């Protein structure tokens, strides 16, 4: 079997996920055994016309982005949204919460009218996405897991249980016990509860699990001392794109 041709593309993002791929140090040579990287602007000059697997990092936020993603979709067999920005809009979509005018004004002052901008949206809002790798940044173990699934030709499993599960399997002290609030109860697992394991609250960077009860989650945040406004902001930090569902 020929090695699958793999390409990486970046859109509006911090490129942390790209960097995290280069952070595969211990594994990168093994990974390269299984694939041919044909396009990876951050690391190489080459370009290709067709891909078996295209990894997309970043949100869609300009008209040029929209054109590019359609073009990539046409040329790839499998398209994977990599990281929160691509999968759920992520932190970029926070700007969608405020009227676009005031966002531009805050940054550019009176020059704001020179510069058009779109809301920041996940890749799946524009083209069909075959799989999503969540996280800000995407977690290396999860990337490898999904990578292995793809190379083996099996559909990757998308976790649908919350971070609390992984947190409990590790017997972490719950951050609510420490007087903090944490989005673990409704955030999609797969990160091995890395933030709570390091004593920091889960920010919800991996998006919400299916069927998450946002009313109940809001109640939890209120029960633990946040104001309605603070709770809303906390819930929306990475999840503004799905704000309609989230705010109640």
């Amino acid at each position, binding site marked *: 079997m020929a090695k699958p041709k793999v390409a990486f593309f*970046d*859109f*509006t*993002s*911090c*490129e*942390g*996920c790209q*960097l*995290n791929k*280069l*952070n595969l*140090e*211990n594994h*990168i*040579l093994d990974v*390269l055994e299984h694939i041919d*990287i044909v396009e*990876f*602007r*951050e*690391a*190489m*000059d*080459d370009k290709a016309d067709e891909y078996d697997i295209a990894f997309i990092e970043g949100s869609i*936020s*300009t008209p*040029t*982005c929209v054109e590019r993603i359609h073009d990539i979709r046409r040329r790839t067999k499998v398209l994977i949204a990599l990281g929160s920005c691509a999968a759920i809009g*992520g*932190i*970029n979509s*926070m*700007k969608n919460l*405020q009227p676009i005018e*005031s*966002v*531009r004004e*805050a*940054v*550019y002052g009176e*020059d704001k009218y*020179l*510069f*058009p*901008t779109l809301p*920041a949206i996940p890749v799946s809002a524009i083209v069909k996405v075959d799989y999503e790798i969540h996280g*800000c*940044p995407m977690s290396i173990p999860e990337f490898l897991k999904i990578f292995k699934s793809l190379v083996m030709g099996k559909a990757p499993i998308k976790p649908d249980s919350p971070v609390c599960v992984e947190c409990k399997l590790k017997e972490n002290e719950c951050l609510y016990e420490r007087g903090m609030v944490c989005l673990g109860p409704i955030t999609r697992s797969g990160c091995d509860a*890395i*933030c709570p*394991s*390091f*004593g*920091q609250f889960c*920010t919800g960077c991996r998006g919400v699990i299916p069927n998450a009860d946002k009313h109940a989650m809001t109640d939890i945040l209120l029960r633990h001392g946040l104001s309605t406004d*603070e709770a809303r*902001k*906390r819930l929306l*930090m990475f999840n503004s794109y799905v704000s309609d569902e989230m705010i109640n």
Partner: protein
Amino acid sequence: MSKNLDIMVKHLTRVEGHGNIVVNMKDGVLEKAQLDIVEAPRYFEAMLKGRSFHEAAIITSRICGICSLGHQMTSLKATEDALGLEISTQTELLRKLLVNGATIQSNILHIYFLVAPDLFGAPSVFPLIPTHTDVILRALRMKRMANDIGDVVSGRAVHPITPVPGGFTKIPSVGELKEIRRQLVEDGIPDMKATAELLASVAGGIPDFTRETEYISLKHADEYALYDGEIYSSDTGGTPDKNYLEMTNEFIVSHSTSKHCKHNRSSYMVGALARWNNNNDRLCYNALQVADTMGLMPHCYNPYMNTIAQAVETLHCIEDSIAIIDTLLERGLKNEKPNQDPTRYGKGIGSNEVPRGILYHEYEYDRTGNIVTANCIIPTGQNLANIDDDMKKLVPEIMDQSKEDITLKLEMLVRAYDPCISCSVHLLNVEFVE
């Protein structure tokens, strides 16, 4: 000489973020030589508005995955300044260790993965894997070592977890620190020396080009300033970081998509070369030794040598990290809680040397601990005017060469600055007329 030249490098590769190089020369007259930034704007300052001080660093870390630690440190310093949060010596030491780790990892990435292909004449690092396996393995080992510092001390090298206003949510264990120390001593120093030898051997490939400019960086009385210090200009001397706006003077230029900066001249340079020129007397002995072998002298005005300056300070960071760990272990690690009780609310400024140069964050907090206004000035933005000025001097000097060679030299120039265009805080969104 009446030469016509049109160069357009779209989506320059092997840099962080998106940029285009545009050069137009007509009848020997240079009309345009500039780096255009085509990164989509992301509006972080607007997003920060109304956010609590617990969230500011989490959000600003996402400005740039490459310098996420730098943004986080700068953000925490600004918040602590604004809220009057004192931090402990242990916190400061751990942060300096993190800054060292991030500097090592970024510099190694730049040297081996982004610049080395040029020096070896390869389109990317991948073809070098079979031909220069030991070099690649060394690069990976060094990157892993640097990332281990991030993973252990901050939970994760990209978008660190544990650093919060006032301290850390988790303190690494003695065993973990000892293991890092072992790696730094056993692998880090020899690997870095080998790296210096390698660079010395290919240094002939570094273009011979000089243009004296203003160099701005942090400067500290006792140490090679990365985490702490006052702002220092090679032209005008030192000033406290509260004067950062006078040093940066952001302005919007018609030909570029990004705000540019200037201070004493039409442009200035930040980054490893600026740090070298301003602070080389604070480097450790071994770093100065390898600088010598690679031909880096004080008052170096060749921007291509930025990569060499990176290599030099990397060795310093390795040795400094060992010293920090020794101090931490000597003092004994304490399980400190972060100090998160504000003593005031108002404005605060943080500055920090990130691999690409000096970075500033300024926040104003209201009485509920939420941000009213925010401003971030990133190093690449500060360098853009300088890159343009370099190009304007460089192109006429090399216009006799083939278009390919000119293009390559221009690409190498931009890459030497290690521009990190993803930090698109201030980047404007303009469609180009090609």
